[in-house]
């Protein structure tokens, strides 16, 4: 054996050892920000922005250079451990494809030819255009699309400007149907972070929800805890997901038939008397009518629809009943699949209601938040016209603004013209279905402003592009979290932006000042704003700067702990039968309608998440791109063999409307049904500015030219597209 001396070892890792010595102070949070180690180590608490989960983190700077980001041990969300995207968050700062200076369009829209200008020139140009739109069409003709906590100051500016039109794709393209389905049933949405008590669940049911690949930190941590403690996991998914591989029961369901399975499960629970009679009697409304309605939907009825054998349906229903109320039928998050999504989500809510899991340990807890008063702004001007996205309440149960409704109004000019879009941190080209419609709407605009960190596809279509500082370089709005353990958290700058990027609060404020809205920005600096809010809650900016997060003691969160059951539905009960749905002409109890089949020989296009990327926002992050630089298209291995296709072959996907994707590598695998293909969302970039990601993999979004709109709430079901595969020569 070849041994070395202690001295020689220390020599070769000298730099690292010094670093570790300072990093060893990890547990001693007070004084964290000031802590400066012997070799120039500085540690700054902040919260992550790689997704919307907002985990609290501690960033480490070594000799003035950003080194790493880790979880804050005081954080109830991350419990000191970030997900891979959060760990790779340093890459957002170093990304060579970042926008560096404000840009004005120098050619036709979409050509991505720009003139670099100063911030003053860019904002003066935007303000002039916005005021012109206001004079000609009214302030309501300006709409804001935003995603995440970073959009809050822009939302403030747009309301001060006088527009009610502010929307996020997180509603109509994501969790909207789920929240509406639960609201119709329990009177409350699921919210974010989800109020799912996964860690205490003894039986966890996942319907198309691919936790582990879908990397919402707390949920995945609790999923692992549940598996570790032997919870029974039931997964229904057309794809053998990572979660499916952890399941006791994997149900290889036919795509689009989840509602049939849910009805059959409920049928078994009612028919066999396995549901929580006491809970239903105490809290339920319309149970008898509900029971009569689902009576025909037996496992034998569901079998040909779902492909799941009746005995499996019975066995899994009994498994759920065995562990109730600690059986959690997970509501999922991205729920816009087939256009009947609010009703499917309502069926999930009803199944949970039968199991008595809402409000109970191992089911759904009652979240809480700390009270932090808002900043005392003057009242916003009252728009003379209502929001443009849902005229005449066409979608009567929409609880938030509908992005695609604003897009439609922009194209048609009805109910009134929309002439200016401000787009913050959301790549609408990939986020909204049918990019052709989005481009059509853009062509009807007088002004498109995009504020973002990288030059995504939507930035490519902009008239003005404003480069934002990353989360590691800026203050932001506080995170006053609604969670099992309530807390308040601060995002603060760790390092300087590398070029002329500015924080969103500065952009929103400077723009407002140029629009004559100074009354809405009485504060001069963000520190002043944040301290004012925190003082109102008996805290201080200085304390948050030191600790990053201040948590309250965990309150009672379950009925078992004294939370009083209360349901803000019309009946004040859990609505097994919904009179308000019936009165608007909808099914009062969900009914299954078979989804339309695709053209012969085609595959249904399904898409999902990878743990190392968020939407189409992170593909140029150099750390995360190394972990995954392109997506693959999953095709059943037997089908692939018959077609003479092999893993690694490059194929193009052609959809039912003749749209053809970028070349993408094939993954021939047994882990998917033969009637569908699957891709990770967010790849196949076409924006020239995204040099690292340009042309890598294929975009599912480009192939989503059709969508089924949910009649209850306007969500856009996107799993209704079909593709064939063509080998790339």
């Amino acid at each position: 054996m070849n041994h070395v001396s202690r001295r020689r070892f220390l020599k070769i890792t000298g730099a690292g050892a010094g670093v570790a010595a300072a990093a060893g102070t990890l547990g001693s949070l007070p004084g964290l920000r000031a802590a400066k180690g012997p070799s120039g180590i500085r540690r700054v608490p902040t919260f992550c922005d790689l997704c919307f989960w907002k985990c609290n983190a501690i960033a480490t700077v070594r000799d003035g250079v950003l080194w790493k980001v880790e979880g804050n041990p005081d954080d109830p969300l991350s419990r000191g451990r970030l997900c891979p995207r959060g760990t790779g968050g340093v890459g957002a700062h170093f990304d060579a494809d970042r926008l560096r200076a404000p840009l004005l369009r120098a050619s036709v829209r979409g050509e991505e030819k720009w003139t670099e200008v100063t911030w003053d020139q860019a904002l003066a140009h935007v303000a002039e255009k916005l005021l012109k739109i206001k004079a000609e069409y009214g302030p309501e003709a300006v709409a804001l699309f935003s995603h995440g906590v970073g959009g809050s100051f822009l939302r403030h500016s747009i309301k001060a400007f006088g527009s009610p039109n502010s929307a996020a794709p997180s509603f109509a393209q994501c969790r909207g149907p789920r929240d509406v389905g639960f609201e119709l049933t329990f009177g409350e949405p699921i919210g974010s972070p989800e109020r799912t008590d996964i860690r205490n669940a003894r039986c966890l049911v996942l319907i198309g929800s691919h936790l582990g690949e879908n990397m919402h930190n707390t949920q995945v941590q609790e999923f692992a805890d549940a598996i570790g403690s032997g919870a029974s996991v039931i997964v229904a998914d057309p794809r053998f997901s990572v979660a499916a591989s952890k399941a006791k029961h994997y149900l290889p369901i036919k795509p689009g038939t989840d509602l049939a399975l849910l009805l059959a499960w409920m049928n078994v629970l009612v028919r066999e008397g396995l549901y929580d009679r006491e809970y239903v009697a105490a809290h339920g409304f319309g149970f008898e009518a509900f029971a009569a309605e689902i009576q025909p939907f037996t496992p034998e009825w569901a079998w040909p629809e779902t492909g799941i054998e009746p005995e499996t349906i019975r066995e899994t229903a009994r498994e759920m009943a065995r562990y109730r109320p600690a059986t959690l039928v997970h509501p999922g998050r991205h729920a816009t699949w087939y256009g009947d999504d609010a009703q499917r989500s309502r069926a999930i809510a009803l199944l949970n209601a039968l199991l008595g899991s809402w409000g109970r340990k191992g089911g759904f807890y009652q979240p809480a938040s700390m009270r932090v008063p808002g900043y005392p702004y003057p009242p916003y001007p009252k728009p003379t016209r209502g929001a443009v996205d849902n005229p005449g309440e066409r979608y009567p149960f929409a609880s938030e603004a509908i992005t695609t409704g604003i897009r439609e109004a922009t194209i048609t000019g009805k109910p009134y013209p929309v002439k200016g879009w401000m787009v913050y941190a959301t790549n609408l080209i990939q986020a909204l279905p049918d990019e052709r419609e989005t481009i059509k709407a853009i062509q009807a605009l007088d002004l498109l402003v995009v504020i973002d960190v990288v030059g995504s596809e939507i930035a490519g279509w902009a008239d003005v592009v404003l480069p934002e500082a990353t989360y590691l370089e800026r203050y932001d709005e506080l995170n006053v979290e609604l969670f099992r353990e309530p807390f308040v958290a601060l995002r603060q700058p760790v390092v300087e932006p590398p070029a002329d990027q500015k924080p969103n609060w500065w952009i929103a404020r400077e723009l407002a000042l140029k629009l004559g809205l100074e009354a809405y920005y009485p504060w001069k600096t963000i520190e002043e704003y944040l301290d004012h809010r925190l003082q109102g809650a008996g805290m201080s900016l200085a304390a948050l700067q030191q600790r990053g997060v201040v948590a309250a003691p965990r309150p009672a969160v379950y009925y078992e702990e004294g939370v009083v059951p209360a349901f803000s539905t019309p009946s004040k009960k859990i609505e097994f039968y919904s009179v308000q749905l019936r009165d608007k002409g909808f099914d009062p109890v969900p009914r299954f309608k078979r989804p339309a089949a695709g053209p012969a020989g085609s595959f249904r296009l399904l898409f999902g998440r990878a743990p190392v990327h968020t939407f189409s926002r992170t593909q140029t992050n150099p750390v995360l791109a190394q972990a995954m630089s392109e997506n693959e298209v999953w095709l059943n291995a037997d089908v692939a063999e018959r077609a003479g296709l092999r893993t690694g072959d490059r194929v193009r996907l052609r959809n039912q409307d003749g749209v053809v994707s970028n070349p993408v590598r094939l993954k021939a695998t047994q882990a998917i049904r033969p009637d569908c293909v699957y891709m990770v969302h967010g790849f196949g970039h076409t924006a020239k500015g995204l040099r690292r990601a340009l042309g890598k993999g294929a975009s599912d979004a480009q192939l989503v030219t059709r969508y089924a709109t949910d009649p209850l709430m306007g969500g856009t079901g996107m799993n209704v597209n079909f593709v064939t595969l063509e080998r790339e020569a």
Partner: protein
Amino acid sequence: MARLGMVIDTRRCVGCMDCVVACKTENQTPEGMNRDWITYATKGRYPRLSLTIQSERCNHCDEPPCVSCCPTGASHVHDWGRVVLVTKEECIGCKACLASCPYDARYVHPDGYADKCTLCIHRVEQGQDPACVSVCPTRCMHFGDLDDPESEVARLLASRTHHAVLPEAGTRPRIFYLE
């Protein structure tokens, strides 16, 4: 003397690659080169399938062929924890160790020396876990002294069915996977 190793619970692991990303940021590994990686093995025919996910790295073998084949002594067994390390100043970049490693755990750093997992010895010496272990959101990774019967790793190995990668290579690997 400690014999450091890892025990990884494949039931909890979801293959999220946080360990891979954390190693990259902690150790600033060169673009495209990794000291740890994930393997996914799907078996069976749809829908009766199994999937095994493993976070893999240098096994810090008890009988490391990379050390015995090294002509300069750059590849060596550290005297604390018996961690297999490379002294980059003594490495001539001959790649004998790359060829000898049954796990393909090494790469040649652009600066010309063989490089690989150090079990984050710089952290371990400060009482911290390796970066991969410390970030893992599923808490599937455990690190410690395999020779200490009271250690978490030893207790896990004593109580659960486990395997190593390529034990038939005869190098006595020290990364174990709970089934």
